[in-house]
Protein backbone atom coordinates (compact mmCIF):
# COMPACT_ATOMS: atom_id res chain seq x y z
CA UNK A 1 0.00 0.00 0.00
CA UNK A 2 1.34 3.41 -0.95
CA UNK A 3 -0.60 6.63 -0.73
CA UNK A 4 0.62 9.98 -1.98
CA UNK A 5 -0.62 13.41 -1.00
CA UNK A 6 -0.24 16.24 -3.49
CA UNK A 7 -0.78 19.82 -2.38
CA UNK A 8 -1.24 23.00 -4.37
CA UNK A 9 -0.83 26.10 -2.22
CA UNK A 10 -2.78 28.43 -4.48
CA UNK A 11 -3.24 32.18 -4.09
CA UNK A 12 -6.75 31.66 -2.70
CA UNK A 13 -7.17 27.93 -2.05
CA UNK A 14 -4.96 25.18 -0.73
CA UNK A 15 -5.98 22.14 -2.73
CA UNK A 16 -5.28 18.54 -1.73
CA UNK A 17 -5.34 15.42 -3.89
CA UNK A 18 -4.75 12.02 -2.26
CA UNK A 19 -3.78 9.14 -4.51
CA UNK A 20 -3.65 5.37 -4.03
CA UNK A 21 -0.86 3.91 -6.15
CA UNK A 22 -2.06 0.30 -5.94
CA UNK A 23 -5.52 1.04 -7.27
CA UNK A 24 -4.14 3.86 -9.52
CA UNK A 25 -6.99 5.95 -8.25
CA UNK A 26 -7.80 9.22 -6.52
CA UNK A 27 -8.74 8.63 -2.88
CA UNK A 28 -10.16 12.10 -2.40
CA UNK A 29 -9.77 15.80 -3.08
CA UNK A 30 -10.47 18.72 -0.72
CA UNK A 31 -9.57 22.36 -0.36
CA UNK A 32 -9.59 25.25 2.09
CA UNK A 33 -8.45 28.87 2.09
CA UNK A 34 -4.70 29.46 1.89
CA UNK A 35 -3.45 31.05 5.10
CA UNK A 36 -0.09 32.39 4.05
CA UNK A 37 -0.50 35.68 5.94
CA UNK A 38 -0.66 33.91 9.31
CA UNK A 39 0.68 30.39 9.10
CA UNK A 40 0.32 28.39 5.93
CA UNK A 41 -0.13 25.14 7.85
CA UNK A 42 -3.49 26.27 9.32
CA UNK A 43 -5.27 26.12 5.97
CA UNK A 44 -3.44 22.95 5.11
CA UNK A 45 -4.49 21.27 8.38
CA UNK A 46 -8.11 22.25 7.80
CA UNK A 47 -8.07 20.84 4.28
CA UNK A 48 -6.39 17.69 5.57
CA UNK A 49 -9.02 17.24 8.30
CA UNK A 50 -11.71 17.58 5.63
CA UNK A 51 -9.95 14.95 3.56
CA UNK A 52 -9.81 12.45 6.44
CA UNK A 53 -13.45 12.98 7.30
CA UNK A 54 -14.36 12.50 3.64
CA UNK A 55 -12.48 9.20 3.53
CA UNK A 56 -13.81 8.24 6.95
CA UNK A 57 -10.40 7.57 8.49
CA UNK A 58 -6.89 8.87 8.93
CA UNK A 59 -4.40 7.47 6.45
CA UNK A 60 -0.63 7.53 6.17
CA UNK A 61 1.17 8.99 3.16
CA UNK A 62 4.34 7.60 1.68
CA UNK A 63 5.17 11.04 0.32
CA UNK A 64 3.69 14.51 0.57
CA UNK A 65 4.68 16.89 -2.23
CA UNK A 66 3.56 20.43 -2.87
CA UNK A 67 3.63 23.18 -5.44
CA UNK A 68 2.89 26.79 -4.68
CA UNK A 69 1.62 29.99 -6.20
CA UNK A 70 0.78 31.49 -2.80
CA UNK A 71 1.84 35.00 -1.79
CA UNK A 72 1.81 36.29 -5.35
CA UNK A 73 3.49 33.28 -6.95
CA UNK A 74 7.01 33.54 -8.31
CA UNK A 75 7.33 37.17 -9.40
CA UNK A 76 9.98 37.86 -12.01
CA UNK A 77 11.42 40.69 -14.07
CA UNK A 78 12.66 39.78 -17.56
CA UNK A 79 15.33 42.08 -18.99
CA UNK A 80 16.76 41.88 -22.50
CA UNK A 81 17.97 44.02 -25.38
CA UNK A 82 15.58 43.97 -28.36
CA UNK A 83 11.88 43.43 -27.69
CA UNK A 84 11.31 40.73 -30.31
CA UNK A 85 14.53 38.85 -29.53
CA UNK A 86 16.31 38.59 -26.15
CA UNK A 87 13.46 40.31 -24.28
CA UNK A 88 10.97 37.82 -25.70
CA UNK A 89 13.38 34.91 -25.08
CA UNK A 90 13.84 35.99 -21.45
CA UNK A 91 10.09 36.31 -20.99
CA UNK A 92 9.49 32.82 -22.37
CA UNK A 93 12.08 31.33 -20.04
CA UNK A 94 10.37 32.93 -17.02
CA UNK A 95 6.95 31.70 -18.13
CA UNK A 96 8.35 28.22 -18.78
CA UNK A 97 9.75 28.18 -15.24
CA UNK A 98 6.26 28.86 -13.90
CA UNK A 99 6.82 32.50 -13.00
CA UNK A 100 4.60 35.52 -13.31
CA UNK A 101 6.46 38.04 -15.42
CA UNK A 102 5.49 41.26 -13.71
CA UNK A 103 8.08 43.45 -15.40
CA UNK A 104 9.61 43.32 -18.87
CA UNK A 105 12.39 45.73 -19.85
CA UNK A 106 14.40 46.33 -23.03
CA UNK A 107 17.65 48.26 -23.72
CA UNK A 108 19.35 50.32 -20.99
CA UNK A 109 17.52 50.29 -17.66
CA UNK A 110 16.57 53.65 -16.24
CA UNK A 111 16.02 54.62 -12.61
CA UNK A 112 12.25 54.44 -12.75
CA UNK A 113 12.43 50.88 -14.09
CA UNK A 114 14.81 49.87 -11.33
CA UNK A 115 12.47 51.46 -8.81
CA UNK A 116 9.64 49.29 -10.16
CA UNK A 117 11.74 46.20 -9.41
CA UNK A 118 11.74 47.25 -5.76
CA UNK A 119 8.12 48.44 -5.70
CA UNK A 120 6.70 45.32 -7.32
CA UNK A 121 8.59 43.10 -4.84
CA UNK A 122 10.14 41.05 -7.60
CA UNK A 123 11.59 37.70 -6.44
CA UNK A 124 14.09 36.96 -9.20
CA UNK A 125 15.53 38.97 -12.10
CA UNK A 126 16.44 37.31 -15.39
CA UNK A 127 19.09 39.42 -17.11
CA UNK A 128 19.64 38.70 -20.80
CA UNK A 129 20.85 40.64 -23.83
CA UNK A 130 23.01 40.00 -26.86
CA UNK A 131 23.56 36.86 -28.87
CA UNK A 132 26.83 35.07 -27.99
CA UNK A 133 29.63 37.23 -29.39
CA UNK A 134 27.17 40.02 -30.07
CA UNK A 135 26.11 43.11 -28.16
CA UNK A 136 27.59 43.22 -24.67
CA UNK A 137 27.49 46.93 -23.82
CA UNK A 138 23.83 46.85 -22.75
CA UNK A 139 23.98 43.84 -20.39
CA UNK A 140 27.11 45.20 -18.76
CA UNK A 141 25.41 48.56 -18.34
CA UNK A 142 22.31 46.91 -16.89
CA UNK A 143 24.25 44.67 -14.49
CA UNK A 144 26.09 47.74 -13.22
CA UNK A 145 22.84 49.67 -12.90
CA UNK A 146 21.28 46.88 -10.83
CA UNK A 147 24.40 46.67 -8.67
CA UNK A 148 24.63 50.39 -8.04
CA UNK A 149 20.94 50.48 -7.11
CA UNK A 150 21.61 47.93 -4.38
CA UNK A 151 19.60 45.05 -5.82
CA UNK A 152 20.01 42.08 -3.48
CA UNK A 153 17.42 39.65 -4.87
CA UNK A 154 18.76 36.81 -7.04
CA UNK A 155 19.83 37.86 -10.53
CA UNK A 156 20.10 35.10 -13.13
CA UNK A 157 22.47 36.11 -15.92
CA UNK A 158 21.57 34.47 -19.23
CA UNK A 159 22.97 36.89 -21.78
CA UNK A 160 25.94 37.10 -24.16
CA UNK A 161 28.48 34.55 -22.90
CA UNK A 162 31.41 36.67 -24.06
CA UNK A 163 31.00 39.00 -21.08
CA UNK A 164 30.27 36.38 -18.41
CA UNK A 165 33.55 37.23 -16.69
CA UNK A 166 32.76 40.94 -16.56
CA UNK A 167 29.29 40.14 -15.22
CA UNK A 168 30.75 37.93 -12.48
CA UNK A 169 33.07 40.81 -11.50
CA UNK A 170 30.10 43.17 -11.30
CA UNK A 171 28.17 40.68 -9.16
CA UNK A 172 31.16 40.44 -6.81
CA UNK A 173 31.85 44.16 -6.75
CA UNK A 174 28.33 44.98 -5.60
CA UNK A 175 27.91 41.89 -3.43
CA UNK A 176 25.00 40.68 -5.49
CA UNK A 177 23.25 37.32 -5.44
CA UNK A 178 24.25 36.53 -9.01
CA UNK A 179 23.90 33.27 -10.91
CA UNK A 180 25.37 32.50 -14.32
CA UNK A 181 23.79 30.28 -16.97
CA UNK A 182 23.66 29.75 -20.72
CA UNK A 183 22.43 32.49 -23.02
CA UNK A 184 18.64 32.39 -23.59
CA UNK A 185 19.32 33.36 -27.22
CA UNK A 186 22.81 32.15 -28.22
CA UNK A 187 22.21 33.05 -31.88
CA UNK A 188 19.55 35.06 -33.69
CA UNK A 189 16.10 33.44 -33.32
CA UNK A 190 17.52 30.43 -31.43
CA UNK A 191 15.80 29.90 -28.09
CA UNK A 192 17.63 28.13 -25.28
CA UNK A 193 15.35 27.65 -22.30
CA UNK A 194 16.77 24.80 -20.26
CA UNK A 195 19.75 26.19 -18.37
CA UNK A 196 18.09 29.40 -17.15
CA UNK A 197 14.83 27.62 -16.35
CA UNK A 198 16.62 25.05 -14.16
CA UNK A 199 18.48 27.82 -12.38
CA UNK A 200 15.24 29.68 -11.66
CA UNK A 201 13.65 26.52 -10.23
CA UNK A 202 16.69 25.91 -8.08
CA UNK A 203 16.55 29.42 -6.64
CA UNK A 204 12.80 29.11 -6.13
CA UNK A 205 13.32 25.99 -4.02
CA UNK A 206 16.30 27.25 -2.04
CA UNK A 207 15.27 30.83 -1.40
CA UNK A 208 11.86 31.92 -2.59
CA UNK A 209 9.60 29.41 -0.87
CA UNK A 210 11.18 30.42 2.42
CA UNK A 211 10.37 34.07 1.81
CA UNK A 212 6.81 33.10 0.90
CA UNK A 213 6.17 31.52 4.28
CA UNK A 214 6.01 28.03 2.89
CA UNK A 215 9.13 26.81 4.59
CA UNK A 216 7.20 26.78 7.88
CA UNK A 217 5.37 23.71 6.75
CA UNK A 218 8.43 21.71 5.73
CA UNK A 219 8.32 19.52 8.81
CA UNK A 220 4.89 18.27 7.80
CA UNK A 221 5.51 17.67 4.14
CA UNK A 222 8.40 16.18 2.21
CA UNK A 223 9.05 19.01 -0.16
CA UNK A 224 7.78 21.89 -2.21
CA UNK A 225 9.09 21.14 -5.65
CA UNK A 226 7.65 23.58 -8.15
CA UNK A 227 5.75 26.78 -8.75
CA UNK A 228 2.16 25.71 -9.57
CA UNK A 229 2.14 26.70 -13.27
CA UNK A 230 5.29 24.74 -13.77
CA UNK A 231 3.57 21.67 -12.26
CA UNK A 232 0.70 22.12 -14.73
CA UNK A 233 3.22 22.34 -17.57
CA UNK A 234 4.83 19.06 -16.42
CA UNK A 235 1.41 17.40 -16.31
CA UNK A 236 0.54 18.71 -19.77
CA UNK A 237 3.80 17.39 -21.24
CA UNK A 238 3.26 13.96 -19.70
CA UNK A 239 -0.37 13.79 -20.84
CA UNK A 240 0.69 14.75 -24.36
CA UNK A 241 3.75 12.56 -24.75
CA UNK A 242 2.76 9.49 -22.76
CA UNK A 243 5.12 7.35 -20.70
CA UNK A 244 6.71 4.02 -21.66
CA UNK A 245 3.97 1.71 -22.96
CA UNK A 246 1.16 4.05 -21.90
CA UNK A 247 0.38 6.34 -24.85
CA UNK A 248 -0.35 10.04 -24.43
CA UNK A 249 -3.01 12.13 -26.14
CA UNK A 250 -0.69 13.66 -28.75
CA UNK A 251 -0.66 17.39 -29.34
CA UNK A 252 -2.77 19.30 -26.84
CA UNK A 253 -3.71 22.76 -25.64
CA UNK A 254 -4.67 23.54 -22.05
CA UNK A 255 -6.63 26.60 -21.06
CA UNK A 256 -6.65 27.48 -17.37
CA UNK A 257 -8.90 30.38 -16.47
CA UNK A 258 -8.25 31.62 -12.94
CA UNK A 259 -9.21 34.61 -10.85
CA UNK A 260 -6.15 36.69 -11.68
CA UNK A 261 -4.82 35.22 -14.93
CA UNK A 262 -5.67 33.06 -17.89
CA UNK A 263 -2.87 30.63 -18.65
CA UNK A 264 -2.59 28.89 -21.98
CA UNK A 265 -0.31 25.90 -22.62
CA UNK A 266 0.38 24.28 -25.98
CA UNK A 267 2.35 21.08 -26.35
CA UNK A 268 3.07 20.81 -30.06
CA UNK A 269 5.58 21.64 -32.76
CA UNK A 270 5.53 25.09 -34.43
CA UNK A 271 4.48 23.78 -37.82
CA UNK A 272 4.05 20.55 -39.72
CA UNK A 273 3.73 22.18 -43.12
CA UNK A 274 6.43 22.27 -45.76
CA UNK A 275 4.97 25.27 -47.62
CA UNK A 276 5.58 27.84 -44.89
CA UNK A 277 8.54 30.04 -44.12
CA UNK A 278 8.77 30.48 -40.37
CA UNK A 279 9.86 33.82 -39.00
CA UNK A 280 10.92 35.15 -35.65
CA UNK A 281 12.23 33.65 -32.44
CA UNK A 282 12.06 29.87 -32.21
CA UNK A 283 8.97 28.59 -30.35
CA UNK A 284 9.18 26.17 -27.43
CA UNK A 285 7.51 22.77 -27.96
CA UNK A 286 5.88 23.14 -24.55
CA UNK A 287 4.81 26.77 -24.48
CA UNK A 288 3.04 28.68 -21.72
CA UNK A 289 1.59 32.16 -22.00
CA UNK A 290 -0.04 34.09 -19.18
CA UNK A 291 -2.54 36.89 -19.57
CA UNK A 292 -2.41 39.04 -16.46
CA UNK A 293 -5.33 41.19 -17.63
CA UNK A 294 -7.70 38.29 -18.24
CA UNK A 295 -9.21 36.65 -15.18
CA UNK A 296 -12.53 36.03 -13.46
CA UNK A 297 -12.01 38.19 -10.35
CA UNK A 298 -8.85 40.29 -9.73
CA UNK A 299 -8.45 40.77 -13.48
CA UNK A 300 -12.10 40.93 -14.52
CA UNK A 301 -11.87 44.69 -15.27
CA UNK A 302 -9.10 43.88 -17.77
CA UNK A 303 -11.58 41.93 -19.87
CA UNK A 304 -13.66 45.01 -20.67
CA UNK A 305 -10.77 47.48 -20.68
CA UNK A 306 -9.81 46.81 -24.27
CA UNK A 307 -13.41 47.01 -25.50
CA UNK A 308 -14.70 50.16 -27.17
CA UNK A 309 -17.69 52.08 -25.86
CA UNK A 310 -19.72 50.67 -28.76
CA UNK A 311 -18.77 47.09 -28.00
CA UNK A 312 -19.68 47.55 -24.34
CA UNK A 313 -23.08 48.98 -25.33
CA UNK A 314 -23.60 46.12 -27.71
CA UNK A 315 -22.82 43.53 -25.04
CA UNK A 316 -25.08 45.27 -22.52
CA UNK A 317 -27.95 45.32 -24.96
CA UNK A 318 -27.33 41.86 -26.36
CA UNK A 319 -26.98 40.17 -22.98
CA UNK A 320 -29.24 42.47 -20.98
CA UNK A 321 -26.54 43.24 -18.39
CA UNK A 322 -24.35 46.07 -17.15
CA UNK A 323 -21.00 44.49 -17.88
CA UNK A 324 -18.81 47.24 -16.41
CA UNK A 325 -20.69 47.06 -13.13
CA UNK A 326 -20.41 43.26 -13.13
CA UNK A 327 -16.63 43.18 -13.60
CA UNK A 328 -16.15 45.84 -10.94
CA UNK A 329 -18.28 43.84 -8.52
CA UNK A 330 -16.07 40.82 -9.11
CA UNK A 331 -12.92 42.87 -8.70
CA UNK A 332 -14.21 44.29 -5.40
CA UNK A 333 -15.12 40.85 -4.08
CA UNK A 334 -12.62 38.34 -5.36
CA UNK A 335 -14.12 35.55 -3.26
CA UNK A 336 -17.50 35.95 -4.95
CA UNK A 337 -19.09 32.63 -5.86
CA UNK A 338 -22.06 32.63 -8.24
CA UNK A 339 -25.24 32.57 -6.17
CA UNK A 340 -27.89 32.69 -8.86
CA UNK A 341 -28.35 32.12 -12.57
CA UNK A 342 -27.51 35.76 -13.29
CA UNK A 343 -24.07 35.44 -11.66
CA UNK A 344 -23.52 32.15 -13.48
CA UNK A 345 -24.49 33.77 -16.76
CA UNK A 346 -21.97 36.59 -16.27
CA UNK A 347 -19.20 34.22 -15.20
CA UNK A 348 -19.90 32.07 -18.23
CA UNK A 349 -19.64 35.12 -20.50
CA UNK A 350 -16.42 36.35 -18.88
CA UNK A 351 -14.95 32.85 -19.14
CA UNK A 352 -15.73 32.80 -22.85
CA UNK A 353 -14.06 36.18 -23.33
CA UNK A 354 -10.93 35.04 -21.45
CA UNK A 355 -10.65 31.87 -23.54
CA UNK A 356 -11.10 33.75 -26.81
CA UNK A 357 -8.59 36.49 -26.00
CA UNK A 358 -5.97 34.26 -24.43
CA UNK A 359 -5.93 32.09 -27.54
CA UNK A 360 -5.79 35.19 -29.73
CA UNK A 361 -2.50 36.04 -28.02
CA UNK A 362 -1.13 32.50 -27.75
CA UNK A 363 -1.59 31.22 -31.30
CA UNK A 364 0.62 32.01 -34.31
CA UNK A 365 -0.19 34.03 -37.41
CA UNK A 366 0.12 33.27 -41.11
CA UNK A 367 0.21 35.54 -44.16
CA UNK A 368 0.19 34.68 -47.84
CA UNK A 369 2.81 35.82 -50.32
CA UNK A 370 1.87 35.28 -53.95
CA UNK A 371 4.36 34.01 -56.51
CA UNK A 372 3.86 32.53 -59.99
CA UNK A 373 4.69 29.15 -58.44
CA UNK A 374 1.66 29.47 -56.20
CA UNK A 375 1.26 30.72 -52.66
CA UNK A 376 4.03 30.90 -50.14
CA UNK A 377 3.11 31.31 -46.49
CA UNK A 378 4.91 33.42 -43.96
CA UNK A 379 4.32 32.19 -40.41
CA UNK A 380 5.15 33.65 -37.00
CA UNK A 381 4.38 31.85 -33.72
CA UNK A 382 2.90 28.37 -33.32
CA UNK A 383 0.49 26.64 -35.68
CA UNK A 384 -2.14 24.93 -33.50
CA UNK A 385 -4.41 23.89 -36.39
CA UNK A 386 -3.95 20.15 -35.93
CA UNK A 387 -4.01 20.00 -32.15
CA UNK A 388 -6.05 16.93 -31.15
CA UNK A 389 -7.44 18.11 -27.81
CA UNK A 390 -8.23 21.36 -26.05
CA UNK A 391 -8.46 20.75 -22.31
CA UNK A 392 -10.13 23.12 -19.90
CA UNK A 393 -9.24 23.59 -16.25
CA UNK A 394 -9.85 26.19 -13.53
CA UNK A 395 -13.03 26.95 -11.58
CA UNK A 396 -15.13 28.70 -14.20
CA UNK A 397 -14.72 25.91 -16.75
CA UNK A 398 -15.03 23.05 -14.28
CA UNK A 399 -18.24 24.48 -12.79
CA UNK A 400 -19.75 25.71 -16.03
CA UNK A 401 -23.01 24.22 -17.27
CA UNK A 402 -21.90 25.08 -20.80
CA UNK A 403 -18.27 23.97 -20.97
CA UNK A 404 -18.43 23.60 -24.73
CA UNK A 405 -19.27 27.27 -25.16
CA UNK A 406 -16.13 28.32 -23.30
CA UNK A 407 -13.75 25.83 -24.91
CA UNK A 408 -14.94 26.45 -28.47
CA UNK A 409 -13.75 30.05 -28.04
CA UNK A 410 -10.22 28.70 -28.52
CA UNK A 411 -11.08 27.61 -32.07
CA UNK A 412 -11.49 29.83 -35.11
CA UNK A 413 -15.11 30.81 -34.48
CA UNK A 414 -14.67 34.16 -36.23
CA UNK A 415 -13.06 32.52 -39.27
CA UNK A 416 -10.01 34.74 -39.24
CA UNK A 417 -7.72 32.98 -41.73
CA UNK A 418 -4.56 34.54 -40.34
CA UNK A 419 -4.93 33.08 -36.80
CA UNK A 420 -3.52 29.58 -36.41
CA UNK A 421 -6.05 28.38 -33.82
CA UNK A 422 -7.02 24.73 -33.30
CA UNK A 423 -9.23 23.67 -36.23
CA UNK A 424 -11.36 20.85 -34.99
CA UNK A 425 -10.14 19.62 -31.63
CA UNK A 426 -11.97 17.42 -29.15
CA UNK A 427 -12.78 19.13 -25.87
CA UNK A 428 -11.92 17.65 -22.49
CA UNK A 429 -12.19 18.99 -18.95
CA UNK A 430 -10.08 18.46 -15.85
CA UNK A 431 -13.28 17.83 -13.85
CA UNK A 432 -11.54 17.11 -10.52
CA UNK A 433 -8.99 19.92 -10.81
CA UNK A 434 -6.03 17.56 -10.61
CA UNK A 435 -3.58 18.79 -13.24
CA UNK A 436 -1.17 20.60 -10.93
CA UNK A 437 -1.26 17.65 -8.51
CA UNK A 438 -0.50 15.22 -11.33
CA UNK A 439 2.43 17.36 -12.40
CA UNK A 440 3.84 16.82 -8.91
CA UNK A 441 3.11 13.11 -8.92
CA UNK A 442 4.78 12.93 -12.34
CA UNK A 443 8.07 13.80 -10.61
CA UNK A 444 8.05 10.49 -8.72
CA UNK A 445 5.43 8.25 -10.38
CA UNK A 446 4.94 9.34 -13.99
CA UNK A 447 3.03 6.25 -15.11
CA UNK A 448 0.60 6.54 -12.21
CA UNK A 449 0.06 10.26 -12.86
CA UNK A 450 -0.57 9.61 -16.55
CA UNK A 451 -3.10 6.83 -15.89
CA UNK A 452 -5.02 8.96 -13.41
CA UNK A 453 -5.11 11.93 -15.78
CA UNK A 454 -6.37 9.77 -18.63
CA UNK A 455 -9.10 8.43 -16.37
CA UNK A 456 -10.24 11.77 -14.93
CA UNK A 457 -9.61 14.33 -17.66
CA UNK A 458 -12.60 13.39 -19.74
CA UNK A 459 -15.37 14.56 -21.98
CA UNK A 460 -17.11 17.83 -21.35
CA UNK A 461 -20.57 17.96 -19.85
CA UNK A 462 -23.21 19.04 -22.32
CA UNK A 463 -25.54 17.78 -24.98
CA UNK A 464 -24.51 15.06 -27.38
CA UNK A 465 -23.81 17.18 -30.45
CA UNK A 466 -21.50 19.35 -28.37
CA UNK A 467 -19.60 16.39 -27.00
CA UNK A 468 -19.05 14.37 -30.17
CA UNK A 469 -17.66 16.02 -33.24
Amino acid at each position, binding site marked *: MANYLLIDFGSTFTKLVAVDSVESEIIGTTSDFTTVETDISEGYQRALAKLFSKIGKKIEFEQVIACSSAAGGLKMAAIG*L*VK*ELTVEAAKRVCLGAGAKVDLVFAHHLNQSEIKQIFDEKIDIILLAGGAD*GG*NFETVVFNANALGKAGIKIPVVYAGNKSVQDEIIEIFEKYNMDGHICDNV*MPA*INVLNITSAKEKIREIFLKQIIEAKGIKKIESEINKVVLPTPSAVLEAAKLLSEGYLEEPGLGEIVIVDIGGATTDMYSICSSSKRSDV*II*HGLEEPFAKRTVEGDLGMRYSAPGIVKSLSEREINFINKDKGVDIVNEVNRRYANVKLLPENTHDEFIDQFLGEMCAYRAMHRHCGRIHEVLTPMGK*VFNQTGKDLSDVAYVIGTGGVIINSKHQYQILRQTTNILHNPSELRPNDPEFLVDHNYIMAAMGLLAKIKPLLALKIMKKHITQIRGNQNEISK
Partner: protein
Amino acid sequence: MKTIVIGVIGADVHAVGNKIIEYTLTKSGYNVVNIGVLSSQEDFINAAIETNADIIMVSSLYGHGEIDCRGMRDKCIESGIENILLYVGGNIVVGKQDFTEVKKRFIEMGFNRIYPPGTPIDEALKDIHADLGE
Protein backbone atom coordinates in the same frame (compact mmCIF):
# COMPACT_ATOMS: atom_id res chain seq x y z
CA MET B 1 35.53 38.20 -35.98
CA LYS B 2 33.44 40.72 -37.89
CA THR B 3 29.72 40.12 -38.12
CA ILE B 4 27.55 40.57 -41.22
CA VAL B 5 23.76 40.25 -41.18
CA ILE B 6 22.37 39.02 -44.49
CA GLY B 7 18.85 38.37 -45.77
CA VAL B 8 16.35 39.03 -48.54
CA ILE B 9 14.11 42.00 -47.87
CA GLY B 10 10.36 42.44 -48.26
CA ALA B 11 7.95 39.90 -49.77
CA ASP B 12 10.81 38.46 -51.80
CA VAL B 13 11.30 34.68 -51.80
CA HIS B 14 14.37 34.26 -54.05
CA ALA B 15 16.39 31.99 -51.81
CA VAL B 16 19.29 30.72 -53.92
CA GLY B 17 21.55 33.78 -54.03
CA ASN B 18 21.11 34.21 -50.28
CA LYS B 19 22.61 30.77 -49.64
CA ILE B 20 25.53 31.50 -51.95
CA ILE B 21 26.24 34.75 -50.14
CA GLU B 22 26.17 32.97 -46.77
CA TYR B 23 28.59 30.36 -48.06
CA THR B 24 31.01 32.86 -49.61
CA LEU B 25 31.13 35.23 -46.64
CA THR B 26 31.50 32.41 -44.10
CA LYS B 27 34.34 30.93 -46.13
CA SER B 28 35.97 34.37 -46.16
CA GLY B 29 36.10 34.38 -42.36
CA TYR B 30 33.04 36.39 -41.35
CA ASN B 31 30.45 35.61 -38.70
CA VAL B 32 27.38 35.48 -40.93
CA VAL B 33 23.94 35.94 -39.41
CA ASN B 34 21.47 34.87 -42.10
CA ILE B 35 17.88 35.88 -41.41
CA GLY B 36 16.69 34.40 -44.72
CA VAL B 37 13.99 35.44 -47.16
CA LEU B 38 10.83 37.49 -46.44
CA SER B 39 12.67 39.64 -43.92
CA SER B 40 11.50 43.07 -42.82
CA GLN B 41 13.74 46.06 -42.11
CA GLU B 42 13.09 45.46 -38.41
CA ASP B 43 14.29 41.84 -38.69
CA PHE B 44 17.62 43.06 -40.13
CA ILE B 45 18.00 45.81 -37.54
CA ASN B 46 17.06 43.64 -34.55
CA ALA B 47 19.51 40.95 -35.60
CA ALA B 48 22.23 43.57 -36.08
CA ILE B 49 21.70 45.03 -32.61
CA GLU B 50 21.77 41.69 -30.78
CA THR B 51 24.85 40.49 -32.68
CA ASN B 52 26.74 43.80 -32.68
CA ALA B 53 26.99 43.51 -36.45
CA ASP B 54 29.35 45.59 -38.60
CA ILE B 55 27.42 45.36 -41.86
CA ILE B 56 23.83 44.74 -42.89
CA MET B 57 23.79 43.29 -46.40
CA VAL B 58 20.37 43.49 -48.00
CA SER B 59 19.42 41.41 -51.01
CA SER B 60 16.47 42.28 -53.21
CA LEU B 61 15.80 40.24 -56.31
CA TYR B 62 12.19 40.80 -57.33
CA GLY B 63 12.35 44.47 -58.28
CA HIS B 64 10.74 46.21 -55.30
CA GLY B 65 14.01 46.96 -53.51
CA GLU B 66 13.56 50.70 -53.51
CA ILE B 67 10.22 50.60 -51.72
CA ASP B 68 11.40 47.91 -49.32
CA CYS B 69 14.59 49.76 -48.37
CA ARG B 70 13.10 53.21 -47.88
CA GLY B 71 13.50 54.54 -44.33
CA MET B 72 15.89 51.80 -43.26
CA ARG B 73 18.73 54.18 -42.36
CA ASP B 74 16.36 56.28 -40.27
CA LYS B 75 15.28 53.19 -38.35
CA CYS B 76 18.96 52.30 -37.76
CA ILE B 77 19.52 55.77 -36.34
CA GLU B 78 16.48 55.45 -34.08
CA SER B 79 17.69 52.04 -32.93
CA GLY B 80 21.15 53.26 -31.91
CA ILE B 81 23.12 51.59 -34.72
CA GLU B 82 23.49 54.76 -36.79
CA ASN B 83 27.04 53.88 -37.82
CA ILE B 84 26.32 50.45 -39.27
CA LEU B 85 27.25 49.90 -42.92
CA LEU B 86 24.31 49.23 -45.24
CA TYR B 87 24.94 47.29 -48.46
CA VAL B 88 22.32 46.40 -51.04
CA GLY B 89 22.43 44.26 -54.16
CA GLY B 90 20.62 41.77 -56.38
CA ASN B 91 18.09 43.11 -58.90
CA ILE B 92 17.12 46.05 -56.76
CA VAL B 93 14.86 47.81 -59.26
CA VAL B 94 12.60 46.69 -62.09
CA GLY B 95 14.06 46.31 -65.57
CA LYS B 96 17.06 48.04 -67.06
CA GLN B 97 17.14 51.51 -65.49
CA ASP B 98 20.16 53.81 -65.60
CA PHE B 99 22.10 52.51 -62.65
CA THR B 100 23.85 55.80 -61.79
CA GLU B 101 20.39 57.24 -61.09
CA VAL B 102 19.42 54.21 -59.02
CA LYS B 103 22.66 54.43 -57.10
CA LYS B 104 22.11 58.11 -56.38
CA ARG B 105 18.68 57.43 -54.93
CA PHE B 106 19.98 54.67 -52.68
CA ILE B 107 22.84 56.89 -51.48
CA GLU B 108 20.27 59.52 -50.54
CA MET B 109 18.44 56.82 -48.62
CA GLY B 110 21.60 56.29 -46.56
CA PHE B 111 23.04 53.13 -48.14
CA ASN B 112 26.85 52.87 -48.23
CA ARG B 113 27.30 50.37 -51.06
CA ILE B 114 24.91 49.73 -53.93
CA TYR B 115 25.49 46.96 -56.48
CA PRO B 116 24.06 46.62 -60.00
CA PRO B 117 22.38 43.39 -61.15
CA GLY B 118 24.75 40.52 -61.79
CA THR B 119 27.43 41.66 -59.34
CA PRO B 120 28.88 38.50 -57.85
CA ILE B 121 29.40 38.63 -54.13
CA ASP B 122 33.16 38.09 -54.53
CA GLU B 123 33.35 41.55 -56.03
CA ALA B 124 31.83 43.04 -52.90
CA LEU B 125 34.46 41.32 -50.73
CA LYS B 126 37.15 43.91 -51.47
CA ASP B 127 34.72 46.67 -50.45
CA ILE B 128 33.99 44.83 -47.20
CA HIS B 129 37.73 44.60 -46.44
CA ALA B 130 38.16 48.29 -47.20
CA ASP B 131 35.14 49.43 -45.20
CA LEU B 132 36.10 47.34 -42.17
CA GLY B 133 39.73 48.47 -42.39
CA GLU B 134 41.06 44.95 -42.91
